[in-house]
């Protein structure tokens, strides 16, 4: 089904959400049709008869207002096109020209009042709207606002210039109304569902042009003006527009845009409102790019563009094995699956704009619920490694500021992190967007990981000196995940590379990787014994080593000599390991001039991980011993204290 039809269905299924703001008020509500949002600066409070009660300036957090719009007013740029109810001062204030000098100043108000009168005179009118109309007829709004000290006059009695209200001048302030009537709880005009309904019915009854809607296949009122502001409130790009006066987009057999395609007013309104709401609520935004996945019945979906850890509702176990991870993933997927019924329809849509005015759909897929979950699961169980770069909030410190701790987890990194690992953080926005887009089919369609991405990450990691230490550690585990995924998919053989050291692995690159890690360990150990801190030769020469392993290995071994001498018998275990691994490499492979495959990173990582694990254990044992000593001593003192 087409994207707009799916969105239309979603809107129909989510009718209950219309006009409901999220719990924190931050998320934009699903707008009723014929409505849009605006930031208001002033709130005018009236009573049921349309008499002025008071007014107030709005705080920054409460400015967002749902307002009814006409097709013209929603897309107005220059020219006069009043909104039906709430608008700027120059439209709603009859005494605007008394305070601001502007050519044709009166015309704005006249047009606005004509429009509002029509609504109030129709059978669909609403008492609150009539109250607003009755008040505005008095043409005393600015005077009232000045007497409330909300607007400021200069010495000539005009509105003072240079007084800011929100982002703009005070004379540009946007007004919203509140009508307080006895016995009614909701006084806000912009939150009243009955007012929405009144306007929708009125507006639909005024629609004349009836034509075939290409989405729903019915003859209904149609519209040529489609909503913008899809990705955010400042977004001017439109998904549907007609552009043939400049571009060669349809001319030929059609005379004008209305021959090329027609879309119903309700269809486009509902479709766009749903999309806007979905992007705001659960979309992934990356600069201009927005990607959103949703169930047409408003089901809860896993955040598929995050890393695996975000899937799980509960805290991870402190030490997890791959098997435990698989169980957890299964459980989470089943959990999400329970939310979806068998006929759940999932849509994934990516949006991007090449120019300011037009929005393009760059990715579109429809899947059934389980298909979607299975594909996501396939990605999150094959592109995995043990990561420890993720920061999570961990309580508060004594100053009340949030604390963070690093989380070690097994899982797939997010596309954002993969981009970072492959191109560093200086990559251009274009490249970042393109990379996320290239990763989408890998996640959703099970496509193979593009190799250039993997090799770029391997190259970046092969130069440890180019990165900060934490950056490099992070890039290393992500690269491992990428290599593992690539190898898994390659030629359908489904190779699985273990996350722990595989001592029987005979792969040349893997063994060379292990050798490098051992050399690094020896040098680090020697430096540690004398309290020195500097970069090891293994790290320094890593990139060279990748290209000319045999030649560079000679250099590394040469430089290792003094450190081995320094360590003496302490290095016995490490030298033994070195020979052992070296012996696993056949002579021809050892001396070959071929450069190393990406799997050397895996060998390097796994071997290094073993050393780090040993170090950690040693440290823990020492700590334990220390503790034991302390308690022993305390025990000795015990009798005296008594």
């Amino acid at each position, binding site marked *: 089904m087409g994207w707009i039809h799916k969105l239309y269905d979603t809107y129909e299924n989510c009718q209950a959400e219309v006009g409901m703001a999220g719990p924190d008020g931050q998320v934009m509500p699903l707008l009723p049709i014929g409505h849009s949002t605006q930031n208001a600066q002033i709130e005018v409070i009236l009573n049921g008869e349309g008499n002025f009660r008071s007014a107030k300036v709005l705080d920054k957090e409460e400015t967002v207002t749902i307002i009814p719009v006409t097709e013209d007013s929603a897309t107005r740029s220059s020219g006069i096109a009043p909104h039906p109810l709430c608008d700027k001062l120059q439209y709603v204030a009859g005494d605007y020209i008394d305070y601001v000098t502007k050519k044709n100043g009166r015309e704005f108000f006249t047009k606005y009042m004509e429009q509002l009168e029509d609504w109030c005179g129709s059978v669909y009118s609403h008492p609150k709207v009539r109250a607003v109309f009755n008040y505005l007829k008095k043409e005393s709004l600015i005077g009232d606002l000045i007497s409330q000290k909300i607007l400021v006059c200069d010495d000539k009695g005009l509105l003072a210039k240079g007084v800011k209200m929100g982002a703009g001048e005070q004379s540009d302030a946007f007004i919203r109304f509140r009508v307080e009537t006895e016995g009614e709880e909701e006084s806000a005009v912009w939150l009243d569902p009955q007012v929405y309904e009144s306007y929708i019915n009125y507006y639909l009854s005024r629609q004349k042009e009836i034509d075939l809607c290409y*989405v729903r296949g019915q003859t209904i009122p149609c519209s040529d003006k489609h909503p913008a502001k899809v990705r955010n409130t400042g977004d001017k790009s439109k998904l549907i527009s007609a552009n043939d006066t400049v571009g060669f*987009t349809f001319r030929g057999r*059609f005379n004008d845009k209305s021959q090329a395609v*027609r879309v119903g007013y309700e269809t486009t309104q509902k479709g766009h409102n749903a999309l806007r709401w979905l992007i705001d609520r659960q979309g992934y935004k990356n600069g201009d790019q927005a990607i959103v996945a949703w169930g047409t019945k408003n089901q809860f979906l896993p955040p598929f563009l995050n890393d695996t850890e975000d899937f799980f509702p509960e805290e991870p176990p402190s030490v997890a094995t791959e098997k435990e991870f698989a169980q957890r993933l299964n459980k989470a997927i089943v959990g999400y699956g329970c939310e979806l019924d068998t006929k759940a329809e999932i849509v994934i849509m990516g949006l991007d704009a090449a120019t300011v005015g*037009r929005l393009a759909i760059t990715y579109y897929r*429809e899947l059934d619920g389980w298909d979607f979950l299975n594909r996501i699961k396939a990605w999150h169980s094959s592109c995995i490694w043990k990561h420890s770069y993720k920061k999570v909030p961990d309580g508060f410190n004594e100053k009340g500021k949030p604390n963070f701790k690093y989380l070690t987890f097994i899982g797939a990194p997010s596309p954002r992190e993969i981009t970072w690992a492959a191109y560093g953080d200086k990559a251009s926005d274009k490249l970042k967007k393109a990379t996320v887009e290239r990763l989408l089919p890998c996640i959703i369609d099970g496509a193979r990981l593009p190799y250039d991405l993997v090799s770029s990450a391997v190259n970046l990691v092969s130069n440890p000196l180019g990165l900060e230490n934490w950056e490099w550690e992070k890039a290393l585990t992500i690269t491992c995940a990428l290599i593992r995924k690539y190898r898994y998919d390659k030629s359908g053989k489904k190779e699985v590379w273990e996350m722990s050291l595989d001592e029987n692995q005979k792969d040349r690159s893997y063994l060379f990787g292990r050798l490098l890690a051992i050399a690094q360990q020896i040098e680090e150990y020697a430096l540690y014994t004398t309290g020195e801190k500097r970069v090891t030769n293994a790290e320094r020469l890593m990139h060279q080593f990748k290209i000319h392993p045999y030649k560079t290995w000679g250099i590394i071994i040469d430089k290792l000599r003094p450190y081995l001498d320094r360590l003496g018998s302490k290095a016995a275990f490490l030298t033994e390991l070195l020979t052992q691994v070296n012996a696993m490499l056949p002579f021809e492979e050892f001396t070959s001039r071929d450069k190393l495959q990406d799997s050397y990173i895996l060998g390097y990582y796994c071997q290094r991980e073993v050393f780090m694990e040993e170090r950690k254990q040693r440290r823990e044992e020492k700590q334990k011993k220390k503790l034991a000593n302390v308690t022993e001593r305390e025990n000795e003192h015990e009798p005296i204290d008594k």
Partner: protein
Amino acid sequence: MERENRVEFKVNGRYALFSDPINRVGGEKISYQVPTYQALKGILESVYWKPTLIWIIDEVRVMNLIKTQSQGIRPVNYSGGNTLSIYTYLTNVEYQVRAHFEWNLHRPNLEQDRNENKHYIIANRMIKCGGRRDIFLGTRECQGYVEPCRFGEGEGAYDHYGTLSFGLMFHGFDYPDETGKGKLVVRLWKAEMKDGYLKFIRPEECTVKRELSAMRPKKFDETNFSELAEL
């Protein structure tokens, strides 16, 4: 017409763009997931066509997984210069098509050309050699290639997939020289694919139609049409 003159062929290409009219008018083209009736008819007309006959597409089979790829494009403006757009193409497509021809009864002056065997044999020969004119999948920049095949042969990516509904889709245009009425009409239909097979309804079975404009059929007479005997 004595028998159903059925032809079967396969068409494939690296890219395809059967544009959805809703997005096309703005200039940011996006492809439908499956070819439209009119696109396939156009492909077959490029392979072989005479005003004597009308090609009717019966069925199409989608062989490869539906995958898309978006590309940044620099389309040309009327006023000169370029703009920027993003087009979304289908990639790596292969379709098996089954179609047949019927006489165009609105061309009585070509009655003597209604030789079933002749057209049938030429059509098959043209499929074998890849068509008379070049083939494109939807839009001009998507080159396609035609080969003979047995419809339903081989393994398709959607063989046991079940039904996939595409909603309301463009079906094709009713041109005046095939309907005998002096107007251009657009046809829409609800497309549904079963296990990779998409059975098209016949043009006259489409119920969702919209009249676009008046149009006169093209004339074929002695001035632009020659018969074999004259050569």
